[in-house]
């Protein structure tokens, strides 16, 4: 129990101060969160409600009029082989994106926990990929992956890992998805690392000292102390990875255009909505993405998150 909490539960003077604050300033917290609630309501909840409604309406600009269609839009999109392919691809984006970003985030978080010269600069630089727009990242990585003069080919050839320059994107589905995923992992890993680093820094040093006294080695300390105590950070990092991977679009669009080898749920939603002008089916896919994101995120939080108190 923290010192502050101990103090709050002890002295009567402090208790009465707490009661007075509650009576006098009850409205203040609500007033302070109201702008945020209005903001979320207008920009997130209202469009979500409209999308949910639109998902059950036949709304095809080339085939009016609009009318209620029940689950008709969902049926149509699930019967579309391109949509099914994009759903499968998105599943792979999620697996690669979440696993790699969380694993690398944990690794870099552990590295950054140690004090070393230039740590502040490294932390600042780490945020850079996260701050870059997805399109810019796609362009940068298209140069890295270029089969004629890309740095990936040149490096691998120099170290003898390949004999000839390779085409990394567009020929094989899993390979294409893996290399597009890497771009997104590059983008989201810094945030995962910072979230995990924040959790790591909250762990009291006494715990490691006690483990040391008890004869625990490095791995045992990580397994028995670090990993259980960074679960809140891990949960948020997993949710972040899920949200970004389910909604991957920019990197797919720049690196693989409309090819089915790497199409994602969002790229297919874009094509159906703004190419085919079938807004009803577009809403249905958007709703599907939203619900999937919420369900998987809640599941991840339930499985990973544990309240940690020191």
């Amino acid at each position: 129990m923290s010192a502050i909490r101990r103090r709050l539960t002890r002295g009567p003077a402090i208790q009465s101060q707490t009661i007075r604050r509650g009576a006098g300033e009850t409205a203040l917290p609500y007033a302070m969160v109201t702008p945020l609630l209005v903001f979320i309501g207008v920009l997130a909840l209202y469009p979500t409600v409209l999308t949910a409604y639109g998902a059950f309406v036949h709304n095809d600009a080339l085939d009016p009029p609009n009318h209620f269609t029940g689950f008709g839009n969902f049926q149509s999109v699930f019967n579309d082989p391109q949509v099914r392919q994009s759903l499968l691809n998105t599943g792979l984006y999620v697996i690669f994106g979440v696993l790699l970003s969380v694993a690398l985030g944990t690794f870099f978080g552990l590295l950054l926990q140690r004090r070393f010269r230039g740590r502040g600069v490294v932390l600042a630089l780490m945020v850079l990929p996260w701050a870059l727009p997805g399109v810019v990242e796609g362009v940068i990585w298209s140069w890295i992956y270029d089969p004629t003069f890309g740095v990936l080919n040149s490096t691998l050839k120099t170290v003898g890992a390949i004999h000839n320059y390779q085409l990394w994107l567009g020929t094989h589905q899993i390979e294409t998805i893996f290399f597009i995923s890497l771009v997104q992992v590059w983008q989201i890993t810094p945030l995962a690392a910072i979230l995990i680093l924040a959790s790591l820094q909250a762990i009291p040093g006494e715990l490691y000292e006690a483990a040391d006294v008890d004869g625990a080695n490095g791995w045992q300390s990580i397994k028995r102390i670090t990993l259980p105590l960074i679960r809140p950070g891990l949960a948020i990092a997993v949710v972040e990875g899920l949200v970004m991977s389910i909604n991957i679009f920019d990197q797919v669009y720049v690196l693989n255009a409309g090819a089915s080898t790497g199409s994602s749920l969002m790229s297919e939603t874009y094509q159906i909505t703004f190419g085919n002008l079938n807004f009803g089916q577009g809403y249905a896919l958007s709703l599907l993405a939203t619900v999937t994101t919420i369900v998987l995120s809640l599941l991840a939080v339930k499985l990973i998150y544990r309240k940690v108190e020191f």
Partner: protein
Amino acid sequence: MRAKRRFTIAAMAVGALGMGVSAASNASVVKATAAASSIRGQTINVAIAYPAPKAELAKFTAQTGVKVNWNYIQWDSLQTKIAAAAEAHSYFADVADVDWSKVGEYYATKWFLPLNSYFPLSGVKAQYPQAASFIRNGKLLGMPMDASLLVTTVNEKDFKAAGIKQDPTTLAQYEADLKAVAAKTSVKHPLDIPLAAAEGLSTYWYEMTAAFGGQVLSSTYKPQFTSPSSPGYKALAWMVNAYKTGLVPKANLNMQDYQALETDQAHNLTASVFSDYSGDVGTIYNVPAQSKVVGQVNYIPTPGLHGVAPNLGNPDGIGIPAQAKHVAAAVAFIRWMEQPANQAAFAGANGAADVISTFPLPANRGGLADLVKSGKVPGAATLAALLEHHSRAIFPAGAPPWYAQFSNAVYTNIHSAAAGAESVSAAISAIASTVKGLAG
């Protein structure tokens, strides 16, 4: 007005909004006939996929008193914004891009106002070589803003280095010349085809099909490419084979059109683009800051099966969205954009000052004549001749309303065939199946 809205509150809101829009459109049409003085002081929003010619625009404002907010938006993003605004029945711009490929769509959706009452069809047809692309069932849905053709460009220096003395006039000769360039020069993959699954690949196939002596869809939108002896089939097989045999750089599998032109052709990684865009010599290859082939690339008449092939048109137009607020001012702006002297200036007749970057050619004959007369744009006379004598619309009946879905099937399947994920015949079957599903 769309009928049968069964869902109470939201549906009534949409209906009321729709009626409001309809009334506003009618009122706008009436307003447009008012005297020019009534537009003075108005501000219009223009959304176009070209950067603004600022000096010229200032002259328009001085002449008319209309202030123009010119929003330069990338083509893909612009189409998304037009569709989103139309779906929401909300105001987006007073003047917006009308691409040739969208005309069928806009005719079906009524997202743009017909311009017949401002620009009589007879005059438009007489003055604009590519006017047909913007007319559907007698309705003029956009005014041609530029003239644009799919043309063939070659790097003359590379061709000469390979011992080629005359430009190829047939496809067989063209292929033999490309192989000679690959064998005798440092350009080992001389043909530039953007094979990424994107629109530029579709138009490449249309032009290649025209070179093989055919078209992809009939005037009733029936597939014309299913037989192995058809031009469309041969064209697709030729493109895939060119990639697989190394005539095309390996990296092109994931390159979109301008990415390929700027990376390959402008940097001498390739020596020819069979289906290039008119204007690219001046706006890409001869720009020292972005090109290593300045003065080396020229337009040639496109080689066909038995001689010179047609050049398909892919012009951009401008139109007035149904939700426009200032129709009269928008019409005045379009008239100004269409003036031959301005059209020629946008294409570079007055030098760099008034030019619109990447603007291919003037849309009307007056502007074309002024441009050729100026002598300031390389290849302008060749392009003007191609436009007058070899230009043809991609679809004889105009772009179908479902063009975007058709093109999506075209580029995804050609890309797959080039990547080796499916055969040429499977790609052809998939495209034909899409057309049958869409056209009925």
